[in-house]
C-alpha cells in the first residue's frame, strides 16, 4: 500500500522534473532536472527490487551523463562568449 503511494509520488515528481527538463529556460537547470529524473528512477528501481539497476542508473544514468552534459554546456558557453554578452548566452543555449 505504502509502496503504491510512494511510487505514485515518485512518478509525479519525475514527470514534473521531465517538464522542467524540457521547458526550463536555463539549460543548467534542465540538465540537473534530467539527472534528477534518473536519480528518482533509481529510487524507483530499489522499490522494484532491482538494486543492481538502481546503482547503475544512479552512477551512470544520472551521474556521469549529467557531468558530460555540463562539460558540453560549459564548452558551448565559452565558445559563445567570444563575441557576445553573457546575457545573450542563455538565449543561445535555451
Amino acid at each position: 500500500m505504502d509502496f503504491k503511494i510512494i511510487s505514485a509520488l515518485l512518478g509525479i515528481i519525475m514527470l514534473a522534473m521531465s517538464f522542467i527538463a524540457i521547458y526550463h529556460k536555463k539549460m543548467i537547470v534542465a540538465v540537473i532536472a534530467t539527472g534528477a529524473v534518473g536519480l528518482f528512477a533509481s529510487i524507483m528501481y530499489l522499490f522494484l527490487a532491482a538494486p543492481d539497476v538502481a546503482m547503475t542508473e544512479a552512477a551512470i544514468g544520472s551521474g556521469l551523463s549529467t557531468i558530460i552534459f555540463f562539460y558540453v554546456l560549459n564548452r558551448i558557453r565559452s565558445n559563445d562568449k567570444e563575441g557576445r554578452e553573457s546575457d545573450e548566452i542563455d538565449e543561445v543555449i535555451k
Partner: protein
Amino acid sequence: MEYITITTGFLIILAGLWAIMTRKNIIRIIIGFSLFDTGIHIVMVSMAYVKGGVAPILDKNELLTDTANKIVDPVPQALVLTAIVIGLGVTALMLAYAMKLHSEKKSLDIESFKDLKW
C-alpha cells in the same frame, strides 16, 4: 505498484519524444532523448517485478530453496543494465556531435543544419 511505475515510464517516453520533436535546441533534444531512454528503462524494470518478490540476490539461505517463487525476474534487469550503458554511450556521442555542430555554425538551433536535403 508496477502499474504505476510502468505508466510513469510510458509517460516519460512520450515526454521525451515530445521534446525530441518540438524543441529546437539540440541540447534540449538530447535531453529529450535521455528522458526517452530513462522511460524505457523504467518500463523494463517494472516488467521484471514479480509481486512480492525480492531482489535476485541469493544472499540469504532461505532464498536458496524454492528460489523461483521468491525473487523478481533477473533477465530484464540484466537487459536494463546493458541498455543503460548503451544509452550513456549514445548520449555522450550525441553531445560530442552537438559540440561539433555548435563550433561549426555557432548555433544550436536544429533548423540551421539543413545543408543536406531533398
